[in-house]
Each structure stands twice: as C-alpha cells, then as structure tokens.
C-alpha cells in the first residue's frame, strides 16, 4: 500500500465521559485509509458514523487512542494544517453553502487560506469544471437543485487540492437523480485524479462502488472488506438495519422460492446470466 492518509488507532469517544451508563459512541476503533483508496463507512442511523466524521476533522477529540491524518497526529496545533489538506461535504446541501453565488462559495476555502486572487480565479474555474458546474458561476444557491449544490460543495473542497475528500452522508437528502449526479461526479474524479475518498453513508449501492467497506454498528467496527466480501454476509447486514443491494436481495428471494443460487452475482446482469445458465442446464 502507498502512504497512509488517515488512520484511527484504538479510538474511543463518549459524549458523557462521567456517566458510565452511557455507552461510548465509538469504541476501540482502528482502521486506516491508504492513498488513492475509496473507502465506504456504512452503518444505520446512530451507529457512530457521524461521530467518526467529527473525530476526523478535529471537531471532537477522542478520550482514548489517536487520530492521525496526513502524517500528523490530530491536536489543537495540527488541526488547521490537517483541515487545509482535506475536503469535506456534509449532508444538508443548504447548510454548507456559504457564498452568495456558486463561484463565491467555491472560493470560500481559498480566501480563508490566503490564496492570491489570480490563483483563486484559476482554481475556481478548474474545480467547477471537474464537477461540471462551470456554467453556473453566478447562480444563487436557491436556484440550484440539491444535487447541484452538493456538486458545488465538492468543487469547494477540490479547490484547495486536498489529499482526502470526505463525504459525510452527502447523498442522503437528495432525490435519486441528485444522488446519481453526485456519485457519478465522484467516480469521474477518481478516474481522472485518483483522489482518496472516504464516503460515510447508509446507502449500500453507493458503498458497492468503493474499494473497501467498513461496517459500523453500535460504535463498533463489525465488518471490513471488499464490497463483495461484506455483501456476501447477507443476513447479518439486514440485522444491522442495512439493506442489501438489489441483486443480492433478489438472489436471496429466488433461493427462498426454490431456485438454486450461488450467491455470487453482484449485479442484476450477473443474476440474469446465472438464471439463464440454470435454465439452459439440464
């Protein structure tokens, strides 16, 4: 593996350190993200996902363990250095749009980091092109769709040329079209630049695109592996309040209905192939 971008080492965090009856929101969590990877962190609402996001950007500090990012240990001192190297997109498209227009919003982080004006103009254009929003420079946020706003937020993060992009439930408030736009944008970005991405989500269709999936439940890491590995545990995921991708759900139902299935088909297409093979075999 190439260099490590982000790592959690035995991290425990609780919102009420004095009260022993309150379970920690995150307990004894260790994982790392290597340069160029796309990792998905999944879990139902209340599984500790959002706490993990806050530990990553230094809004919270763990009671035990360490969070390291870009080779630095997260602390009050290193905080701003780390933040300048990571971009983050949050859940609610409206509540993270700071600028009055698209271009102002994209420039916001650049202004904060004292980037000179000429450089800003170039970077704003560039990042908006990367998310295909370059034609919307002067649009105001309330004239954009949810998906467009999230793409602008991604551009805002990209403008700083971060080493890590974190999507914190960035698609959960969007309509299907918006969700597709955002996921497509991330895919293209990864293809073009190899950017390291961490997506925190409860959408397993989104997680299926990642290189590696971490499943959280009740503050613990329950599973880790490639999407195929994780999804093959079927029932367990459903018990954790997560949904299987469509093809796998169908495979399960078909099995129940008496069709012998291998459980290896990950997409609709593969599933139909498998059914056809079964049908044409004797």
């Amino acid at each position, binding site marked *: 593996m190439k260099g490590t971008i982000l790592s959690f080492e035995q991290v425990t965090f609780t919102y009420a350190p004095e009260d022993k009856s309150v379970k920690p929101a995150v307990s004894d969590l260790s994982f790392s993200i290597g340069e160029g990877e796309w990792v998905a962190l999944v879990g*139902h*609402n*209340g599984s500790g996902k959002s706490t993990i996001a806050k530990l990553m950007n230094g809004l919270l500090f763990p009671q035990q363990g360490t969070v390291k990012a870009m080779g630095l240990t997260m602390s009050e001192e290193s905080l701003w250095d780390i933040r300048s190297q990571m971009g983050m997109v949050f859940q609610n498209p409206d509540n993270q749009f700071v600028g009055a227009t698209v271009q102002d919003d994209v420039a916001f982080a650049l202004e904060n980091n004292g980037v000179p004006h000429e450089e800003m103009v170039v970077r704003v254009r560039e990042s908006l092109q990367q998310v295909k929003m370059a034609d919307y420079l002067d649009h105001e946020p309330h004239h954009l*769709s*949810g998906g467009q706003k999230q793409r602008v937020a991604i551009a805002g993060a990209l403008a700083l040329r971060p080493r890590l992009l974190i999507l914190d439930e960035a698609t*959960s*408030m969007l*309509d*299907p*079209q*918006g969700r597709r736009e955002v996921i497509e944008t991330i895919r293209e970005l990864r293809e073009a630049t190899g950017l390291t991405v961490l997506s925190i989500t*409860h959408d397993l269709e989104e997680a299926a695109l990642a290189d590696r999936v971490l499943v959280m439940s009740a503050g613990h890491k329950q599973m880790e592996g490639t999407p195929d590995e994780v999804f093959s545990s079927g029932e367990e995921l459903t018990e954790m*309040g*997560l*949904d299987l991708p*469509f093809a796998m*759900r*169908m495979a399960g*139902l*078909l099995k*129940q*209905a*008496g*069709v012998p299935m291998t459980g290896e088909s990950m997409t*609709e*297409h593969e*599933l*139909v*192939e498998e*059914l*056809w093979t*079964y*049908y044409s075999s*004797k």
Partner: protein
Amino acid sequence: MDILLKQVGYSYAKDTPFEKRALTDVTLHIPSGSYTAIIGHTGSGKSTVLQHLNALLQPTEGSVLIGERKIEAGTKAKNLREVRKKVGIVFQFPEQQLFDETVLKDIMFGPLNFGVPEEEARRRAIALVEQLGLPEDVLEKSPFDLSGGQMRRVAIAGVLAMEPDVLVLDEPTAGLDPRGRREIMDLFYRLHQEKGLTTVLVTHSMEDAARYADTVAIMHSGKCVATGDVREVFANEEQLGDYRLEPPRTVRMQREFEEKTGLTLDELALTEEALAQSIAQALKEGRELK
C-alpha cells in the same frame, strides 16, 4: 372521498416580475379508496399538485373538487377547515413541524384544532405512539430530545391523529435508513387497507410506487402527462423514457430475464417477492417442458 382536479393551472407570484408557472391544465381524478402514486422529477409540479389536494394552494385556473367542496379559480375560498380535517398531509421532512413541549401535546395539536375533544385526542395519541413503534415514555418527552427517526414518527403520528379520510404523503421516508423506510411505508399501507383510506403518495421511488400504489400519475413540466393502472404505466417503458423516468428495478430485471431466457412471466411483477416467485415458477415450468 373523491378528489378531482379539473384543468387546474397555477402560477406562483402571479402578476409580478417574479411570476412562475407551476401547473398547466392538470386534470387528475383520485377515486375514493384508491392508492395513487404521483411520480416525476423534482420541479415537475408534484408538490404543487399536492398542495391543491387540501386547498393550501388554490388554483389560478380551473377548479378542484374535494369531496363535496368545490374550489374554483378566481374566487376566494373561506372556511377550509372542514376540507383540511378530511385531507391530512405528511410533508417531506415532517419533523420540521414539531413545536410543542411534549410529544403528547404535539400529536394532539391537530385533532384539538379540528375540535376533537381532549380525551379523545389523548386516546388517539397514545394509540398512535404504540402503533408507530415508539416507546411509551416518549409521550412526556420533548420532541426535540428524540432521535431523527423518532421525530419523524412523532410528526407522522401528528397527522394520523387527525384521522383524515385522505392521506397525502410527500416523500415521507426521505433521509431515513432502509429499515426505517420499509417500516413506515408498510405502516401507511396497513392503514390504507384497514381504514379504507384514500392514499396519495408523491415519490421519486418507482419501487415504492410499484409496490404500494394501484394507480400512477406522471407529472412532467407542470402537466399531468399520464395516469393509469400501475401495471399499465410501468409496462410502458417508452412513455416513461419520454419523461426521463426509469421503470422500477423489478420491471427492468423482468424484462432482462424475459429477453435472455425467452420465457414470459404471467404479468408485470410489482414487488421483489412477486418477481422471485414468478421467475421460480417460469423456470420450473420451462425446465419441465424441455
């Protein structure tokens, strides 16, 4: 209760430089006891139609018939309480409307406004909290101390407590995790059947529309471009394509299966369970024939 939109047109901010047309010549009949899904993209006019169903908006052209009550363009309708009592709306992200000190009071807000006696309102609230799978002790809690999913359920209870004849649902499960989504949609379906409600579901999810609705209406750029039986609408892939909509995944898979194997399933499967059953059936028969 029947609702009939007759050649309804609606413009926001009419007669100003900011005028924006939202609906043009929409005719839509929602028969009593039906489960109608309204599908279409964001900005197609779905939400505007929805707000005509209980006269939150009044048409700028045409008329809306809600039960016995007629609301016509150009006249100012007064005293709409009766209409709103009969047509309950669960808006998108309904937890935003919570305001009272306790969950109990918040759920009772609607019924009390419509003149339901306090005892009865309380009884309904208690029953609903149970029905929605909330712990009993939430009743005396502040709604703002609950988790997001619980707040959503309380808000839904607040609408159900009015015991409306028509239940209008605007993306009621947006933002919930898969389990919560399924639970809530199933609950609405149960109510629809048990109480003989008329249900209108505004949704982006073709899968939900296929699973629950019996009638589907397609909205596109402010017009109601198609209505029909759920199978009829979802079988017409060409028409869906014209409005940039995709058939439900089950339908897509059924088509792919039929094409690949040359087998034909009896009818369009609307749920994953039904599709699995009919595929299994078709394979069995097909293999026996060989």
